[in-house]
């Protein structure tokens, strides 16, 4: 009896700990949403409820420009890194060539090195090449740190890949391109999609690489907010962030919901 009671308390304490840690991670997110409805322009106390920031953030031109830049960079760098990363992952898995070990090793560098080192390295290189610092250089930088994540998530799919399917396609007269598009690609698609989602979220939120690769007039949203934090962030930013947060939460919940269904079906 006492043992059972003790077990219950331990269970409750465990749940409490889980709740507290999740709370720690979510407090600032909740605050953003709360303050996006605040009538006061200062983000200190909650004075009253309003929806005006949701109606006015798109009139803030500098904010919208930085959002536009962020989206352009994210879409472009996701597209480029998915194309290069997917083809590259398949190629690296299939062929052996001189310098392959080096490429494999280089792929880990952007993942493990502190971002600032890659940032200053790219800044120096772009200066040496005399490139115009702007959206172009930022996309180059973002693609560089996105490719490894695409390669890794595609590789995870390739691990369970049946090579005989490709051989069958080639034997039946399909050329390399047709085999890749009709056989290989559909099979590794889940890896490609998760690589793309990862690249997109990394690119949307990147600060360090963007900071070192940006030039005049090419601010992204995170850089803009970073700049604003020192002088005070307007509630419009809170409203915009809340919207972005909701979109993300819905996407992840849909994905988790689909997986939950699988789990449930599996247990029945």
């Amino acid at each position, binding site marked *: 009896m006492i043992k059972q009671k003790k077990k219950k308390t331990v269970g409750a304490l465990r*749940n409490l700990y889980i709740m507290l840690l*999740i709370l720690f991670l979510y407090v600032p997110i909740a605050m953003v949403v709360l303050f996006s409805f605040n009538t006061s322009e200062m983000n200190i106390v909650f004075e009253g409820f309003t929806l005006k920031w949701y109606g006015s953030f798109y009139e803030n031109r500098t904010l919208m420009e930085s959002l536009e830049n962020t989206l352009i960079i994210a879409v472009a760098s996701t597209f480029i890194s998915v194309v290069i990363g997917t083809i590259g992952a398949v190629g690296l898995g299939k062929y052996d060539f001189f310098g392959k070990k080096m*490429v494999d090793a280089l792929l880990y560098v952007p993942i493990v090195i502190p971002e600032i080192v890659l940032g200053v390295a790219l800044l120096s290189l772009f200066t040496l090449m005399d490139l115009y610092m702007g959206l172009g250089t930022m996309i180059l930088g973002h693609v560089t740190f996105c490719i490894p994540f695409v390669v890794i998530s595609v590789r995870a799919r390739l691990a369970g890949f049946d090579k005989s399917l490709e051989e069958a396609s080639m034997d039946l007269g399909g050329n390399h391109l047709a085999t890749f598009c009709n056989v290989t690609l559909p099979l590794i698609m889940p890896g490609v999609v998760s690589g793309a989602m990862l690249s997109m979220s990394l690119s949307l939120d990147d600060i*360090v690489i963007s900071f070192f690769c940006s030039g005049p007039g090419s601010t992204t949203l995170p850089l803009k*907010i970073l700049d604003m934090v020192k002088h005070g962030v307007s509630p419009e930013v809170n409203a915009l962030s809340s919207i972005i947060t909701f979109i993300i939460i819905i996407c992840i919940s849909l994905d988790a919901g689909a997986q939950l269904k699988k789990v449930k079906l599996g247990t029945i």
Partner: protein
Amino acid sequence: MKKKFKSNLAKFAMITPISLWMYIMVALPFLYIILISFMHPGTYGGVELGVTLDNYKELLNPLYLVTFGRSIVMSTAVTCVCLLLAYPFCYFVAKKNDIQKKILMSCIMITFCVSMIIRLFMWINLLRSEGAVNHFFINIGWIQVPLKLVYSNMGAMIGLIYMLLPFMILPLFNSIEKIDYTILEAACDLGAKPFQSFINITIPLTKPGIFAGSVMVFIPSMGLYFVTDLMGGSKTLVIGNLIKNQFITARNWPLGAAMSVILMLITYLLLKAYQMAGGSMDDLSGM
């Protein structure tokens, strides 16, 4: 003959883009940074050709040495706190059923995706002298004067821990979830106390997660300059701040490059140690 050519063409088309990109955008910049670290600084930023060891000599300046030391102490502390916070969490979550696990881990994934800078900014709001946290503790009477939770070492610590905690949780959870509970039951049947079996079985079995998580927290924490810029005090706190200052404010690129080389070396040595301890590089990608 024709077939051979086509096959070669396919191979060439598949491996060239990624190889070129990695060589030009990763290998080349890093080589160039190493090169710069041996050059003279230009008058208005940039570099002047020449070979010198002055930049590395400059690093022996106590001012920089102290910052390097402080940065490593700070990163160690952040890593330890993250491990201590994350381990019980992962351990408790791993004992839940599949559906609860999925929901709780999705909660962790969501935080990854919400803008870092916005979350950071809200912490500053919460923690400053007139912020909610101090307000709360004063109201319940635990403290009389507001604590200096932000714009101090403490603030920088909180910021880094907050940012990096999910990177500890994910690999740790993956390895704790894989524990074979029959082994623990066997230990229990053989008379081991829960604490004993935790120390002798659970911890050794989850070593891969502990190592991977620690590497994924420790290494980035040395470079996250904007967290310490915003939440730390006036003192330069991590190596990342030093590098950024040299490249952006002081415009002494060779010195900044030398600092970057040191940071690369520290990263390299840590990863070597991690691999020698049996860690896998793929665990470090967060998937």
